[in-house]
Structure formats: structure tokens, C-alpha cells
């Protein structure tokens, strides 16, 4: 049985889009030499013109951040920094509706996710780290750990405001100043956040937002005036930055994604597992590094799980991301859509069985139907590649030990889900899987207090929790409390 819902769009009037946005440097907005257009991936409508940060802009931003670091922010008592961060947290909560609509418009992510998950978590990240700003001496990194200095942060298009909060909140709490380069696909919430910094009376230069494409990102990552680089994005670019930092000796945090695995044992609550797998992959359009797109199921439960996933995929509503009934929004960009399309074609060519529910795609915008591949082997490209789209692969295993071995067969190790009702098996799998985050009988839970980050080539460093502070503190020789 299929229910049809009346359209229930979130009011777009919550946001007042400007025609064009400048760069936020030293506390004020200023235009630059060239601009680019940011579009809604759901409609291809142009939302605004955004400034393309050039070399001189990045220089100015680094200088502003350096001055703010030396003159104000690093010298300020932790208690004062703490108050600024609390204020930012409250302002995000006050403007939650607007920020959610902006992220949904700009990135195509359903409003239910941005409003219900991303924006509240972003506020929570600032609230959590506000409390650390005046307690750093108790964090286990020595009695008075020092900040690193000026930090360049390059983030991607997956949950842009939340990822901004993951980056900026700990950096500021630890006394650093930042230059943030948002993705060219989703710059709008970062620019709204710049306004929030002004509203919070944050000293000029503590947060700078330089918009632009990958070229601007390279200018930021490679700037000699930085003391630390943090990058979220592709493995290829991440490794390039890692090589540069290896020579310059700059500390580096990387979040490069990969693919996450869901291990479903025969005794698991199959409905619960199917529900979380479908929600984890399709609701985010697979656009998070921790999307659990690789499903390994114990052979006896294979048919039941595939049937339950199919049933749930068939009930997904795809369409207008601003509608609260929408489960699956748009793919973030044409480039990403092309990548997903190619990967799907290669999966079929390799002989994996492809299935999608009947599904009408809108005429405009970037859309891809929820897709499942079964009969996938590890030697298939799609069996181990980062899918980063609304698709999942299903294959079977015979024993938990085999599942662990297969799960470790990729070069990544970001996250994994474990589904079994046997506590000892759940704990065993959680301890043996080589991944930085494990959810047992759950998936894609995030919290500012819980460290997040991958093993192996999924990235470097942790974000969140006490552990996440380490990425923004100068800990040399300071670990002995």
C-alpha cells in the first residue's frame, strides 16, 4: 500500500537571498575580481552569485587571521572565548529555520535532514566546544596547552553547515583563528555563518570565509602563512595536501570518506537493519563518507534482508527537497551525478544485478533513483569503491570472521554498522572491525562529544570529543599531565 502525501514545503521565505555575496575577511564582506553562480541542484535555478577567492584574497584572509590571532584571540582568556562560542550556538538555534532552508536549497538535501539533524547538531557542536574553551588544561594535553595559530579549513558539500561547525568550533575553542573555504557547490550557509559571527560581535579576523572552487582551496591549503590545514574531500586531493604538509611539517587533519560497511548477521532484527540501511544511504543521497552503502549479510538472512530493503526503497519519496515528506533529495551537482552514473554503468557491466524502484525523476535538476546492486563480489569495482551516491551493494558472508576480513578488504576504514541480537557477537565484531566509528544495531549517529574519524586511508585525526581537541592544540611535549 502506498500513501500519497499532500505537498508540505518548508517556507522558502525564511531566507532572504542576496543577488551576490562577497568574501568575509577581517570582519567585513568585500567583493572580488570574479564571481561564480551557485545553483539549486533540484532545479538548476541560480540562487546567487558568489565571489571566487583569488590569491590576493587568500593572502588578505591569512593576514587578517594572523592579526586576530596575535592581537586578540590567542591572548583572550578562555572564559571570554567560551562566551563567544555559546553566543554563536544560540544564534544558530535562533536562525535554524533559515539555515536549514539554505542548506537544502543549495545542496539538495531534504529539509527533514537539514532541519532535524544538521542544524541542531551544528549548534550543539558550538555549545559543546564553548565549554572546552576555558577547560583545556583538563583535557589531557598538559596543564596549559597552546593553540596552533592560523588554520586553513577546506570542507566539502556533504552537510555543509554541520561540517563547518565540526571544523570551526574546536579550532576557535582552542584559541586558533580560521580561514574557511566551503565547497563551490554549497557556499551559502558558510556565508550566513559569517553574518552570525558579526551578530555575535566575534572579533574581526577570527573567522574568515573565502569562497571559490578547488583552485581557491589549493591556495588556502598551500598558503605558507598557515600553521595547520584541515581538509575534507577526495582522497586524491587529500593525499596531495598530505605530501605538501609532509614537507612543510604542518599538522594536518584529513577526512576523505571511503565507504562504510553494514554487517547484518542472520539473527539480526532484519526490519530494523533494513530501515537503518535505507535511511543511511538514500536519505543522504549517499552523500556522506559514512554512508553504509556496502552491505554484507550472513547468507541465511540474505533474501529476507534484500526483500525488506526493496520494500523500503519502494516507499521512498523522491523530489522537492524543501518538502518535509521528501526522503530522497537531489544529487549535489552535475559532476557528482556523472560520477554516480558512470559507476552504476560499470557495476552493470561487471555483472552485478541492479534494481531500482519505479520512480519518476523531475525534469530539471540532478537526480538519481535509489539503486541496489546484488550479487556483488569484492572484486567488482562497486564492491569496494566509494559510491557517494544513492546506491548500495549487497553480498553475503558465512561467518562473522569472514565478515571482518571482507570489511577490511578496502583501503578505507571510516565507519561500520553491526546488526545482531547477540551481545557477545556485537561486541566482538565492534572490537575486530578496523574502522574509526562502529554503530551496533544503529547507524549514522553523530554527537559533538563522540570522536569521529577513520582508520587507514579514510583520513587522519579525530573530530569531536576530548580527542578532537588534539587536532587544534600544540601538544609537543605536553602529553604528560
Amino acid at each position, binding site marked *: 500500500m502506498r500513501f500519497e502525501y499532500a505537498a508540505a514545503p518548508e517556507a522558502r521565505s525564511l531566507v532572504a537571498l542576496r543577488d551576490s555575496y562577497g568574501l568575509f575577511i577581517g570582519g567585513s564582506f568585500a567583493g572580488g575580481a570574479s564571481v561564480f553562480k551557485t545553483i539549486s541542484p533540484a532545479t538548476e535555478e541560480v540562487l546567487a552569485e558568489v565571489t571566487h577567492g583569488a590569491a590576493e584574497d587568500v593572502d588578505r584572509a591569512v593576514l587578517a587571521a594572523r592579526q586576530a590571532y596575535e592581537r586578540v584571540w590567542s591572548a583572550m582568556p578562555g572564559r571570554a572565548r567560551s562566551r563567544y562560542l555559546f553566543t554563536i550556538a544560540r544564534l544558530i538555534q535562533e536562525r535554524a529555520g533559515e539555515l536549514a532552508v539554505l542548506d537544502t536549497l543549495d545542496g539538495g538535501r531534504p529539509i527533514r535532514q537539514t532541519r532535524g539533524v544538521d542544524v541542531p547538531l551544528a549548534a550543539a557542536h558550538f555549545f559543546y566546544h564553548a565549554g572546552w574553551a576555558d577547560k583545556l588544561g583538563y583535557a589531557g594535553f598538559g596543564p596549559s596547552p597552546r593553540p596552533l595559530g592560523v588554520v586553513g579549513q577546506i570542507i566539502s558539500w556533504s552537510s555543509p553547515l554541520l561540517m563547518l561547525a565540526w571544523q570551526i568550533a574546536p579550532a576557535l575553542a582552542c584559541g586558533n583563528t580560521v580561514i574557511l573555504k566551503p565547497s563551490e557547490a554549497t557556499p551559502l550557509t558558510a556565508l550566513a555563518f559569517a553574518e552570525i559571527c558579526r551578530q555575535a560581535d566575534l572579533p574581526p579576523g577570527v573567522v574568515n570565509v573565502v569562497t571559490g572552487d578547488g583552485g581557491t582551496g589549493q591556495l588556502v591549503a598551500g598558503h605558507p602563512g598557515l600553521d595547520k590545514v584541515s581538509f575534507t574531500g577526495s582522497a586524491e586531493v587529500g593525499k596531495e595536501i598530505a605530501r605538501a604538509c609532509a614537507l612543510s611539517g604542518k599538522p594536518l587533519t584529513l577526512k576523505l570518506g571511503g565507504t562504510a560497511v553494514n554487517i547484518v548477521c542472520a539473527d539480526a532484527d532484519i526490519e530494523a537493519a533494513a530501515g537503518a540501511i535505507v535511511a543511511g544511504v538514500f536519505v543522504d543521497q549517499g552523500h556522506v563518507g559514512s554512508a553504509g552503502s556496502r552491505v554484507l549479510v550472513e547468507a541465511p538472512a540474505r533474501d529476507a534482508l534484500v526483500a525488506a530493503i526493496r520494500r523500503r526503497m519502494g516507499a521512498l519519496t523522491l523530489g522537492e527537497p524543501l518538502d518535509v515528506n521528501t526522503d530522497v533529495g537531489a544529487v549535489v551537482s552535475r559532476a557528482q551525478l556523472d560520477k554516480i552514473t558512470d559507476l552504476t554503468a560499470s557495476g552493470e557491466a561487471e555483472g552485478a544485478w541492479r534494481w531500482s524502484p519505479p520512480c519518476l525523476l523531475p525534469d530539471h535538476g540532478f537526480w538519481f533513483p535509489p539503486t541496489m546492486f546484488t550479487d556483488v563480489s569484492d572484486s567488482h569495482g562497486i564492491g569496494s569503491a566509494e559510491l557517494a551516491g544513492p546506491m548500495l551493494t549487497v553480498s553475503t558472508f558465512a561467518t562473522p570472521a569472514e565478515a571482518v576480513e571482507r570489511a577490511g578488504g578496502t583501503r578505507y576504514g571510516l565507519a561500520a554498522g553491526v546488526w545482531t541480537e547477540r551481545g557477545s557477537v556485537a561486541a566482538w565484531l565492534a572490537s575486530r572491525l578496523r574502522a574509526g566509528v562502529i554503530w551496533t544495531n*544503529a547507524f549514522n549517529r553523530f554527537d559533538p562529544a563522540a570522536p569521529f574519524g577513520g582508520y587507514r586511508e579514510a583520513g587522519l585525526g579525530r573530530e569531536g*570529543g576530548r580527542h578532537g581537541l588534539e587536532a587544534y592544540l600544540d601538544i*609537543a611535549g605536553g602529553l604528560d599531565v
Partner: protein
Amino acid sequence: MSELSDVAVRTTYRLRIGDAFRRSESGRTFEVRGADGGFLARAALASGRDARDAVAAARTAFPAWSGSSAYQRGQLLYRVAAILADHRARFAHEVRRAVGASAAAAYAEVDAATDRWLWYTGWTDKIAQVRGSANPVAGHYLNLSVPEPAGVVAVLAPQDSALLGMVSVLAPAIVGGNTAVLVASERYPLPALGLAEVFAAADLPAGVVNVLTGEVAEVAPWLAAHQDVNAIDLAGAPGALADDLAVAAAGTLKRVVRLADADWTAEPGLERMFATLETKTVWHPLAP
């Protein structure tokens, strides 16, 4: 007429790979000379192929070593310290003829190395409590972060130290459950091979520590670029080589340990031990 005992029983020192003391697959050896320039022994000159074999042995040993209890690892590492202490005179002799120290200084170095090993032995069952955390998340979950070993660690022993420096970089790599490929100091390889014999005598599981001797500049690039090496400690690489190795290691995002030159006699701190550990966060739902 000379006594029989005046005539040395000579051997070529071998690599330690997995459960075997073996020659380099390349068949090559090199001369090890003492501080006075006198001939001490021949040792195997490891090749890239030996390095890859050592990585494979370390990988094979990893599941059991990382999966054994902290208590069990502590017991085994304690036995290493005990045998090292038993062989105090032999290691002091090795150190002395390698670096030319006074007898008192050589004994002091062996004692310090034993002490260092014992200090790290005591860490096996404390790392998780000091480095881990229970995380108060907003939902109904038991949420724990625990340190876990990164995997296989390549350890380049410092060049300027015959024993204490090597122990000070090797022990922190393996206490938390990593397995190691140790590249001995080029000038002072014999104490490393002596240590390998102690590991074997202590029944430290095969492959937990593999020892290569030879030229760091030949062997280390293989390790730095190897897909299956998860971390590398560059203590024994001179500046320019360390840069190259760090760049090569970035290609597979190895955890790179590159700390300022240490005074090996000082209290070591925790940075080196933590540098080859990952943090795993586990979410368990709470429900009646």
C-alpha cells in the same frame, strides 16, 4: 700454543623475519666494525624483498597480537625485560664494543634500556584508561572511545644509539598491539639482532617484531610506500631522507611519527606511544 677458546666461533648475523633467523634473500652481507674500527661480524644486508617479507610477517602476526589481552601482552613483554636483565653483561659488551663507551656507561645504557622496556610493559593495560573515554552523547547510547593499534608499524631505530634509543622507539610501537618492522641502526646493528634473540627466547609471538639490518636509505623507502604498513617512525632517518619518506608515506596516509631529536635518557612521555594508535568510537543503543 693458543687455547681453543681464543679462536672465535664466528657467524653471520641474520635478519629476523617471522619465526626465522635468515639470510637476506639477496644473499648480501656487510661488515660491522666496532668503535675502534676493528671487525666485529658480518650481518645480512637487507633488500626491498626482505622488507616486504618482514611486512607480510608483521601483518600475519597482527590479528593475534592486537587481539590478545593487554594483560597477556604485558606478561610477554615482562619476560623480554627479564631476559634482557639476565643478559646484562652480554648487551653491555655489545654496546661497549659498538660505541666505545666505558664499561660503566655501557652497563648504564643496558640498565636504562631494561628500565625503559619495563616502563612500557606497564602501559599495556593502562593505555585504554588514559587514552580512551566514555562519551556523554545526547541520545540513549552507551558511547565509548577506545585506543586501538594502527596495524603494522615501520620503526627506524635512531642511528646514534646502540640500544636505549632503539628500545625507546620500538617498545611504544608494540605495547598497544601494533606489530613492527624494525630497521636497525646502520652503525650499530648487532644489539638489535641480540634483542631479536631475546624476543625469540621470551616466546614473543613470531612476527610481532621483525628486524632488518642494512642501509636505511635502501630499505626504508620500501616500507614508507608499502600499502600494508600503517605507520612509520622516522627516528632513524636523516633529515633529507626523512622528508622523502614522509612524502612517500603520505601516498597511503600512514601515521607518521616524526618527533624532535630526543634525549633518550629523559622520561619518554606519551606522544610516541599514542602516535601509532587509532581511536575507535563505538555506539551501543540502550533499550529495555
